[in-house]
């Protein structure tokens, strides 16, 4: 029943699909962390991954830009397509993929460099700017889109690590979008932030969906409900349910989803 409704949904949005995962398995050594996950992630949409701790939602997020490659014992099987291109194809360079699929981490992690250099780093290594003026432009544009320009425009030379937690996280978002990615992956971006900073970042996420496909892993169901249009519920490595956020929270199809959103598991 659930499976049927999901398939129909996928067909309807087929034109708009950004990421398409089929039968993805992830193993950490002997642990089977992701089991048979198939999902289509849409463009210009905020997709939330929710689920109890250890359910594999962060692991799955990290397969989307092959960050799991850096872990020796991690094996990924199955197919993941970005715009129809198999990202685990041996010909695909993960470095190139990560330029297209930006990532924001749980803990704000600005480089211990100036605010300017934090933003300029990505464009510099990818050669996106031909000269200083262009780079300046990219930095300003990214900081503006990161909704932090007004706060830092007069101290671009100050170290990024000197900003407050919320500002650091918005700086990291600005840094991620400076390389002009098509998808933005966010791994619990607000878990280290206070409520005010969280609100600012959520507002920013909402604005970003106009240009990007945003995937956000979150522990907070309220946050998922506030910012996302699609929600995927993971449990013990399985993708239990994937649907419009409204549907998930008001009319869950699976009993496990219902238990989780009503607070009985997790």
């Amino acid at each position, binding site marked *: 029943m659930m499976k049927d409704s999901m398939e129909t949904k996928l067909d309807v949005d087929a034109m708009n699909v950004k990421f398409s995962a089929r039968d993805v398995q992830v193993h950490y050594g002997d642990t089977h962390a992701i089991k048979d996950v198939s999902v289509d992630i849409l463009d210009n949409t905020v997709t939330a991954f929710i689920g109890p701790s250890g359910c594999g939602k962060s692991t799955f997020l990290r397969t989307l830009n092959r960050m799991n490659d850096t872990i020796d014992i991690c094996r990924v099987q199955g197919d993941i397509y970005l715009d129809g291109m198999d990202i685990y194809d041996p010909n695909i360079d993960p*470095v190139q993929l*990560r330029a297209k699929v930006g990532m924001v981490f749980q803990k704000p*992690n600005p480089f*211990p460099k100036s605010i300017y250099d934090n933003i300029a*780093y990505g464009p510099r*290594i990818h050669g996106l700017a031909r000269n200083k003026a262009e780079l300046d432009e990219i930095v300003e544009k990214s900081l503006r889109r990161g909704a932090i320009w007004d706060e830092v425009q007069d101290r671009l030379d100050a170290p990024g690590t000197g900003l407050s937690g919320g500002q650091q996280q918005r700086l990291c978002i600005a840094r991620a979008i400076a390389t002009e990615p098509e998808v933005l992956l966010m791994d619990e971006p607000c878990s280290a932030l206070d409520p005010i900073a969280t609100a600012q970042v959520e507002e920013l996420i909402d604005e970003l969906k106009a240009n990007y496909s945003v995937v956000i892993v979150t522990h907070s169901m309220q946050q998922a409900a506030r910012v996302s249009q699609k929600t995927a519920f993971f449990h013990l490595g399985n993708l239990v349910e994937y649907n419009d956020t409204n549907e998930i929270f008001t009319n869950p199809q699976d009993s496990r989803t219902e238990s989780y959103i009503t607070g009985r598991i997790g």
Partner: protein
Amino acid sequence: MSDITNNADTPRIVTSTELVAASLKRRRNKQLRLQMVGMGAIFIAFLMLFILVGSLVATGWQAFTQTHVTLEVFVDPEDIPADRLPRGDFDDTLEAALGRMLPGVDMEDRETARAVQGILSNGAQFTLRDRVVADPSLIGQTVTMKVPTSDPYDQLNKGLIERATPEQNRRVKDNEIRWFDTLKEQGAISKPFNLALFTNADSRFPEQAGLKGALVGSFWALLTCFLISFPLGIGAAIYLEEFAKKNRISDFIEVNINNLAAVPSVVFGLLALAVFIGWFGLPRSAPFVGGLTLALMTMPTIIIATRAALKSVPPSIREAALGLGASKQQVVFQHVLPLAMPGILTGTIIGLAQALGETAPLLLIGMNAFITSAASSPFDSATALPTQIFIWADSPERGFVSRTSAAILVLLGFLVLMNGIAIFLRQKFERRW
């Protein structure tokens, strides 16, 4: 069941509070004893350090001054003709100058004259020669010269020779003490800072022996050691820590690097003797070979320190850079390495400080030779600071006793300086995440 509780013999109810109070005293005493033992250990450690440095300073400070005689030397054209330079009877000229200052001494008697000349350092005639050769117009004039006295008179001036000792047990005879006193009454004796200790190379005569050769030798050796061990050590550490797959081979390498750091230094000396000098035919006693040997010893230290420093860079920085599409090599060289640099430098400096004090391997490759000029390249023969200390400590002349201590103080000074730089770097660039 209830019977048992009722029949239980409970003459007095002991509350847990009382039990705790009783044990508390015992626990406090135990803690106090532990603290006392710890403080005692620290006290003993400091006492030892104080005794060590104290005894070095007590014997060594004398070597930082040197007794000099100021002479009015008439450069006699008969003894030193201009056309025979640089040859001439410079010692006779000095002898005559001393004779004029010691009225009543029979300078015609060869034996006496020789004894009078013994007041001056053997090097004094060469100082005079160099001056005259540099400026031949001095011939026929009187020049004022301040020359070091020989070691026995230096000891006498510093009070290290007891005048009360019977003459036959004393290195300076009664008449010699009278000559010295006569010179002193004339104000000709002075005791300035012993600059020669740093500007002269080694010498058979303590009053002329200096550390320049050893300092230069140590400098070349350390420079060679740094230039080889720093890039190799960092390269090996980066590969092992960042790129190598973790498997049996990398474990085996890691264990062996740690073992290498614990190998006695004399073994490295033997290895260097066999390989660098025996097979490669590199010159004996050369600081370059010393540096190579020390590099072998310093490399494990640098590798271990570098790996620790790389490990301490938080993974979030690596992830941030990787997530932006930086390649592994860019992550390492643009982010991880710069952040690890203070730790790497600290480890390197401490490794070099260790190398500076290393003696055994240098003895084996012949850096304890008697060399009276400073090396002008890393391939010239030289000594190093620790081997110079070894040589001086072995010398029978009294003057070398204080010079040995002084050399140790100089070596300790350099070690303190290097460790100070390491601490400074750590404090200045240490980052809190």
